[in-house]
């Protein structure tokens, strides 16, 4: 779905956060913000929900631990029980190092995979960028244009009053994730 957005460019993160807050106070929806580094307070200003990656990480770790312990038990005590120095077949304390490493491995890989998939960071993706300097020294605020909330001129004035260097309208093909 294509839609019209206002793209405001800032040269620092503090003004970007203030502008985002002001826009939201006026009932405008912020489509996104592109910044060269994580800006402190931007998540709150945009009203982003908490990331659920910790859940993925925990589940991954739990799966790794369970698989690690279960496989070692099965291989050492069920599939081919071998007497190693008279130790019990299922000598679980000796299985802990490998189980721990499997926990960390699966949790880490799951977290990284979830990050990349959820953020659609995949090889060959063309970045949807409004300002090439957004990875260098420009902070970009993308405000969704809506009828009846604020006239375009008023929105421009609001953004410029908050320190925007430039403000322009654009068509965007990007969906707004809510």
């Amino acid at each position, binding site marked *: 779905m294509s839609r019209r957005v206002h793209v405001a460019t800032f040269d620092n993160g503090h003004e970007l956060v203030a502008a985002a807050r002001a826009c939201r106070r006026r009932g405008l929806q912020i489509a*996104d913000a592109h910044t060269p580094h994580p800006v402190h307070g931007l998540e709150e200003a945009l009203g982003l929900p908490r990331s659920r990656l910790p859940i993925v990480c925990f589940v991954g770790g739990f799966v790794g631990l369970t698989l690690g312990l279960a496989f070692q038990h099965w291989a050492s005590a069920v599939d081919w029980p071998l007497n190693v120095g008279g130790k019990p077949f299922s000598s679980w304390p000796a299985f802990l*190092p490998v189980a721990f490493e499997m926990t960390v491995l699966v949790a880490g890989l799951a977290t990284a995979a979830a990050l990349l998939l959820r953020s659609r960071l995949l090889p060959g993706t063309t970045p949807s960028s409004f300002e090439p300097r957004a990875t260098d020294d420009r902070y970009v605020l993308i405000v969704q244009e809506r009828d009846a909330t604020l006239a375009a001129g008023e929105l421009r004035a609001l953004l410029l009053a908050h320190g925007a260097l430039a403000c322009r309208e654009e068509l965007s093909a990007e969906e707004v994730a809510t």
Partner: protein
Amino acid sequence: MVPELAVPRPSASQVPPMPPVPTVPTVDHEPLIGGGKTIAQVTRDVCAPIERGPTRLWYGAFAASSSALLLGVLCVAYQIATGIGTWGLNRTVGWAFDITNFVFWVGIGHAGTLISAVLLLLRQKWRTSINRSAEAMTIFAVICAGLFPVIHMGRPWLAFWVFPYPNARGSLWVNFRSPLLWDVFAIGTYFTISLVFWYVGLIPDLATLRDRAAGLRRRVFGLLSLGWNGSARTWARHEVACVLLAALATPLVVSVHSVVSTDFATSVVPGWHATIFPPYFVIGAIFSGFAMVLTLMLIARKVMRFEHYITAKHVGAMCRVLVFTGSIVGLAYLTELFTAWYSGNPYERFTFLNRAFGPMGWAYWVMVGCNVVAPQLLWFRRVRGDLRLVFLLSLVVNVGMWFERFVIIAGSLERDYLPSAWSGYRPTLVEVGTLVGSFGLFLSAFLLFCRWLPMLAIFELKGVLPTTSQPWRHGAQA
């Protein structure tokens, strides 16, 4: 597309008031990054070595390191073609140079993980100038480490036998009770997680490089940066993912070298069979790793002209870590001696007397001198401020920590319980060549990294500049 409309900035009266400058003096006046850099300058400075191409010094260093690597390749090829008999090992001393090198290189890696993970969790901002290259160092060091056990197998093409895969022998599974197998999992996980952590941190900086480049370079960085655009949502997830990966990597710092130490501690060889081994190895690993980080960083700041980013403050912080961990290593040496005496076990007592005064006593005193005595100089501010001296000390610690592993491994095996089994050990040229080759591999990989990838974490540096991290500074400087 609607043309961009540049408008003069509004007057001060329209700008919301900035918070007042705090009058309370802070302890730390000196900024972390020198030279009053803006974020655009950070981008330029870090990308410059990649974009302007290598210097003559780089070519010289790469020629030297790749020659060393070639020597190593030849030695390993000769050894594999001929057999392990080309090494100085014998029936008493079954582990010597190769396992020493393995433990040495694994240890080097630990500082990278400590800097990138533990210091991230502790919110130590000084890590931002060194974490990227320290993580790269970890990855290359673990590669060097992993090669030695594989070469030692004699038939490295069968290295996959260490993995529990369904096979035509029964399936005969690997022995999950063996510390050598724990090593496989510990090193494998350590390498994988370090690589993932490093790459996830690299993505935003690869995007920065992509947006500055053209042609083939742009396509390559475009492919590697996975379409990163700096979206606030992605940043939020990225930050959470980095903290999670750091939290996962932190126990790895402790677990990997603990597992390596159990290779020795679970055996009954006197001098190895000690409960102090896991913490002793971990702290030694961090100690040696920080020494290697210092060595590399002091070269890099000069060669890559990063003097404003790797400042006296960073060097000072690393020196403090070095003197702290070095002192703990010294304490561990004393504890070992005390335990040997207090145990009343004649074999343990003999082992430690033999270490200090036996045929390999010289190696013991090299170890004590380099690891315990020399770093004590770093208590002095004047020593910490003299970068040439710090560089020299970091090399001394590297040498000392290599000897520590050599003393533990070869020294203990030479003099076992039975005098009839006693033996000596001398490395052959093939073994020395392989060690030189591993340094060649490590330095070649590091030089290629400096050439192609951002050595400093651009986005993290931007976050700790005075203008971005302290809102009130912005008003003062604008």
